[in-house]
């Protein structure tokens, strides 16, 4: 009897009946009028918490035949599963330890902390075909926390492509109240593996020695050691959606093409194919001072992944004649972003032209505009073509893949020539696909896979910008 009473009590507790309440029916009908369920069942309490105890099986159902059949493939696939775990579990364990002890935060705090004005930032760069370079940057900023203020840094880097690199830089407003931001840098560096294919694209089949730069198109390498000093001034007039940045650049270079640095002797050497005396500027201590006026216009909606608007950048100036070298140098690039659909299917049209003007005797080889690489004709290796005038046209389509990833398809054509009248007579085409990684506000980097002169891969932080850090590359 007491068992029954106990059961009834538990049932009453479990299913507290609240009395029927007519509830207005909303479309479609609900079950609200049926207030209480299962009340005619006796309450059973399982003695354990295992799976078989609550189900009430008299004869538990047998495992389906299909499960037995899966035993064999599961055993087979257990091997790659084991291997995956063997690889990843230690990594995961390491990740947990790193987080538990805030290892990254401790290292970062030691090197760089927003609340301090001085910090050390390790740097690393991986470039296609030239390997890894790494170094460190000692940074100073006048204001802790956030943006603004003046900044200075000392940086050093070593690697295969850039054998060594030492830089001192300063950026900031020199005169308070004036909307001009100055940046200056002085740099000592050595590139032991730069490419030279002659001028233009003359393929005569000749392969040196002592060829002139327009005699034939042969892949060679050369080494450049240089001292670079840049002073750049930018006037910023910024509104909510538009951006206009006129400025100027003074770029001083002291180049040396005869130094011997470490064991990085370029191969195949430029001197084995071409006659260095016919390549203007290929000598020791070539000094130039280039002065340009710069203009940047930015009328795009988002800085990271624009969907509408256009961007313009251009410069005009030159190198006053000194030591037998002198020329005019100018270029422009216009990018138009067309929103095709929902601001995430975007067509980018780009046109770029860069040229040098001057007497051939005073025009050094290093001043000639080049084509090829991540920002100029991606289907071709960096510096694949050089001539007095170069132009690139790009058709690029961006589309969404992930919240932080856009896919892209692109097709590019590049042309180069000695004179404007020949420009456009010979085109090089390339195309491919890639990914843009980042947010609408801040694009982190871009991966491109292109086909033109064979397959090319590039990772860039400055997508489709022909004059990105132009002053540092000159």
């Amino acid at each position, binding site marked *: 009897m007491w068992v029954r009473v106990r059961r009834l009590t538990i049932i009453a507790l479990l299913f507290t009946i609240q009395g029927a309440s007519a509830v207005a029916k909303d479309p479609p009908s609900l079950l609200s009028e049926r207030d209480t369920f*299962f009340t005619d069942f006796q309450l059973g309490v399982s003695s354990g918490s295992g799976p078989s105890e609550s189900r009430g099986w008299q004869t538990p159902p047998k495992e389906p035949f299909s499960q037995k059949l899966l035993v064999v493939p599961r055993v087979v696939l257990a091997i790659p599963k084991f291997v995956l775990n063997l690889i990843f579990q230690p990594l995961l364990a390491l990740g947990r330890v790193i*987080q538990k002890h805030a290892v990254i935060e401790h290292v970062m*705090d030691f090197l760089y902390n927003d609340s301090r004005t001085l910090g050390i930032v390790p740097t690393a760069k991986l470039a296609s075909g030239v390997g890894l370079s790494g170094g460190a940057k000692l940074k100073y900023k006048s204001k802790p926390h956030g943006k603004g203020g003046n900044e200075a840094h000392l940086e050093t880097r070593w690697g295969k492509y850039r054998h060594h690199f030492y830089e001192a830089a300063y950026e900031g407003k020199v005169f308070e109240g004036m909307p001009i931001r100055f940046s200056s840098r002085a740099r000592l560096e050595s590139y032991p593996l730069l490419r030279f294919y002659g001028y233009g694209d003359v393929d005569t089949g000749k392969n040196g020695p002592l060829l002139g730069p327009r005699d034939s198109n042969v892949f060679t390498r050369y080494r450049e050691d240089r001292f670079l000093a840049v002073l750049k001034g930018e006037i910023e007039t910024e509104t909510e959606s538009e951006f206009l940045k006129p400025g100027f650049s003074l770029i001083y270079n002291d180049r040396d093409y005869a130094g011997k640095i470490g064991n990085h002797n370029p191969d195949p050497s430029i001197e084995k194919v071409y006659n260095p005396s016919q390549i203007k500027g290929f000598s020791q201590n070539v000094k130039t001072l280039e002065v340009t006026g710069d203009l940047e216009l930015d009328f795009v909606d988002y800085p990271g992944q624009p969907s509408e608007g256009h961007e313009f950048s251009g410069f005009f100036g030159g190198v006053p004649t000194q030591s037998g070298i002198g020329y005019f140098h100018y270029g422009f690039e216009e990018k138009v972003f067309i929103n095709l659909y929902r601001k995430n299917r975007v067509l980018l049209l780009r046109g770029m032209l860069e040229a040098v003007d001057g007497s051939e005797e005073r025009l050094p080889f290093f001043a000639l505009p080049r084509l090829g690489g991540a920002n100029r004709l991606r289907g071709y290796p960096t510096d694949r073509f050089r001539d007095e005038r170069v132009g690139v046209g790009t058709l690029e389509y961006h589309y969404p893949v992930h919240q932080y990833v856009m896919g892209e398809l692109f097709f590019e054509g590049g042309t180069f020539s000695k004179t404007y009248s020949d420009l456009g007579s010979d085109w090089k085409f390339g195309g491919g696909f890639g990914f843009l990684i980042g947010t609408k506000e801040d694009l982190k980097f871009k991966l491109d896979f292109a086909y033109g002169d064979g397959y090319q891969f590039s990772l860039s932080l400055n997508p489709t910008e022909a004059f990105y850090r132009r002053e540092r590359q000159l």
Partner: protein
Amino acid sequence: MKKSVWWVFLVLWYFCVVSCGSVPTKEGEALFNQAPIVWSVDDQKNIEEPEETEFWLADYFDLFVTRSMTRTLELRTDQPALDTNALDEVPNSSWFTNRIGVRKLTSREMARGSNENGPPELPLVVTKGKVLGGNPGFFVKDRRGKLFIIKFDTKRNPEQETATSVIVNRIFWALGYNVPSDTVFHFCRKDISVSEKATQKNKLNEKIKMTDENLDNILKQSPELKPGCYRASASEFLDGVPKGGFSAEGTRPDDPNDQIPHEHRRVLRALQVFSAWTGHTDIKTENTLDMYVNEGGRKYLKHYLVDFGEALGAHASEKERYEDGWEHLFDWDKQLLYFLSFGLWKRPWEDRKDTKWKSIGPFVSKPFDPEAWKEVYPFWPLHEATDEDLYWATKLIMRFNRADLQAIVKEGQLSNPEASEYLVETLLKRRDAIAKAFLYKVSPLDYFRMKEGRICAVDLGQAAGLSEKSTLQRMDSEGKKVEAEFPTAKEGDLCFPLLKKMGYAKDRLRIVVDAPVQRFLPLLELHYVNRERPKILGLIRKLP
């Protein structure tokens, strides 16, 4: 025949058997015992105090990469849930308490939920800074000495997270889950001070003293109601000792009561439906909590769901992520498909729009596809949900009506009544979309009971308005031939005679939707003992 042809046949046969294999119940074999239906599971036995578990960032890598790959290699197939009783219902346990599923809850109960002590009573003393979570907050002690976690809205979306956390908390309580007591409340700066002993952790995981300046910095990030006054959500500390979140898979090794792998618990699988309904995309181990409680002299682990503040579109709004609810953060197959389709395919969520209220994220009824719904971070029990699990969960949400939801939404204290009404309307529409998606995946025949020597039941499809008219067909033991037909009454009610055979009986039943479109629904097998006082023993909800 060539050898290769034989191989093709063999492989085809193999996969046919694998995909079509089933276990028919043999005639005369008693599947269920005659013991009372289990409505309560004793998983509250005394256990030793377990260790606290932690969830690390590296575990996200495991979710998206390692475990995603190894699960594929496991060739997982549908496994029935293991925490169900003979009626395919979920008994009460340390995980779940049957509430709206078995009885009508009053609007007052719905509004109260697990909240017994009300919001914090002023003044408040800050005892600790909050470390985890995206939104600012801290821990306080109120005038009564009760402890709370205090969280705020963002300036961009005033009222959103505070309202959402309370509204969805009440819904999950009504469904049967263990949840903390969450409330919306208001206070001014003068009502709150920082304890001398208050600490917080810095980014180096070091404990440092918390100061008034720290408090002001947190308050600065929150919208002000009037100068110096704020709206916040308060979550009262749960009884017991926190032991970390429960894992999405397997059992907890230091909890002998935890016998069922979590991915095979229906209460966790059903979150696929409940989370889809409420837009709780942020369901993850970090938003669960095991508490080592002492109840009735027994010390055991009680399992909670916590932190619902990112539901109702708030996560999508906070992260500007309109694919929220449609894709995992890294959804390899979908995102590969997007890449290969070059943007020519309009993704279904691209029509999703913000609401006109900052207090509600893009929580919409269209587009909404319950079958395609996905959480942000893969939570494996959701991936194991079978049709039976989805049906059970759907049945529960169908129990909520407009009045219930109005009472619940009112607890969110949204200042704009239109926004409140929109939420209610959207929840109702999403509920109906879920019913349409999942009710007919199995037999919708439910709530069986013996009445005057007959079996009575309800066709939930008809009750929910999915069909205008339906018929119950009694099938032969093979499930092929119709032996008798019984039309359902209005609202889906029907009663039908028992099988003539005495003793253990298996009644194979099928609902046929007659209108608006004829549709034959899956077979259900009802087991009962036919005697002087017949008794229902159990059921198999979906036969092949």
